[in-house]
């Protein structure tokens, strides 16, 4: 299986973090804009991920080695 380049949970965590920081008064507009750009990118990635996701089901066929096959 290909190594994942996108970490959904981490992205979600960052999105929530941004939402929290965005509420702070001391955050300058410039910083807000930068965060917005970063967040928008994450959101796009998450949306793509959500759209393409498909449940994978595998069954272990060899309990010793943990070898599994599509179920």
């Amino acid at each position, binding site marked *: 299986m290909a190594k994942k380049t996108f970490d959904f949970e981490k992205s979600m965590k960052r*999105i929530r973090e941004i939402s929290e920081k965005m509420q702070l008064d001391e955050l300058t*507009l*410039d910083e807000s*804009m930068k965060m917005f750009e970063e967040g928008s990118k994450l959101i796009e990635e998450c949306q793509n991920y959500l759209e393409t*996701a498909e449940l994978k089901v595998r*069954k*272990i066929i060899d309990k010793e080695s943990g070898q599994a096959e599509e179920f």
Partner: protein
Amino acid sequence: MIHEDLQTVYSVGEITQYIKDIIDGNDALQNIYIKGEISNLTKASSGHVYFTLKDKSSQLPCVMFRNFGFSSTNFNFKQGDQVMIRGSFSIYVPHGRYQFYVREIQQAGLGMLYQQFLLLKSKLEEEGLFDEKHKKTLIEVPEKIGVLTSPDGAVIHDIIKTLKRKYPLTELLLYPVMVQGEQAAAQIIQGLYYFNTNPDIDVIIIARGGGSFEDLSCFNDEKLARAIFNSIKPVISAVGHETDFTIADFVADYRAPTPTAAAELAVPDILDITNEINESKLFWLKQIQDKVSDQKIYLDDTFRNIHQQIKRNIKSAKKELYYYARISGSSSLREKLKVFQLQLIERINKKHKNSFFQLKMNEYRSLESLHKTLKKTKLNFQNNIMERIFINKRFLESEQQKINMLDISSTLKRGFSISMKGDKLISSVNDIEIDDQLTTIFKDGRLISKVKNINK
């Protein structure tokens, strides 16, 4: 054809009583145990309880009399319950009906197995294996879910169906185990070990469908209970139906009434996540818009102040211009001054408006840096305007002189002359004093003279 005189003829009551005596006198039918399922349950207002005990092949009418120590109020069994009853057969003569008179009732299968279950439950409970403080929390978005169940049957398919619908972003790894019989507990323990040593697994589901107390007894295994307790990964137990409880359910971090509910519990809803993501962006935009409108208010104020300042400057410039116009006493000069004034005001306004327009265009991107540089540029801008007004004033003054000259040249041609003191026109003897040096302009030249005498 029945011949009465050849046969003994009984009345209904006689023969019924006769049969009753036989049954009552037969030890094989007295004080015996029968097991079956409760149906047609009636709790009479008299306090007696009536039901039919049935199994696949037959049914038996049963009665429990209040004076036997039962009452419809403390009768805890319900329709469909598997029970074991103790009592005796007899016949209720008025109805000619045989029935079973119940002396004692208990849940069926409450033998050794149930006793063991209760013992183990209280033992583990005392040890603290069921304590809330040991319950692990579920990860919000599991990447991989380990399922311990039979690969056959509805359970695994219910779980797959639920995950596909609610959160298809995950991966399900099925570790097939027997869910009934002697080997079941050991297999499930192995599965728990396997999933605990597999770092990708975020949560483990142990599931099986409903069954009898005996069928589920492998989930009342002490070793399995300890394996669940020792699991590093959170365990959701979904064994049997909603009403069935096993030791595995008590010790697991979460108990789900059905396999479907276990899958529901393990994952978030993809719709909730999608909504959250979409709402985040809107929320951010709102935050930024609030910040921008704060900045805009600030900038608007600043520009309004500058605007006021410019207006004041223009006003004072205007005053001065009027002054020159007035002292020059010339109407055409006034006209020209007016035009020049308008041009000047327009130029200043235009510059001002352009800046303001550009500001609006770019404000969403650059309000912040504008805000920072504004303090500096505000001064420069102001100075610049002031300088422009000053230069224009100087220009105006020199223009005014030229205009003055043009305006008076026709008068000069007619032989008149104009006297000036410095760069000021002399229109009255009150403007001069003795010994003042005057310049007198003629149509073809100028002379400089000294005042010797003034006659008023």
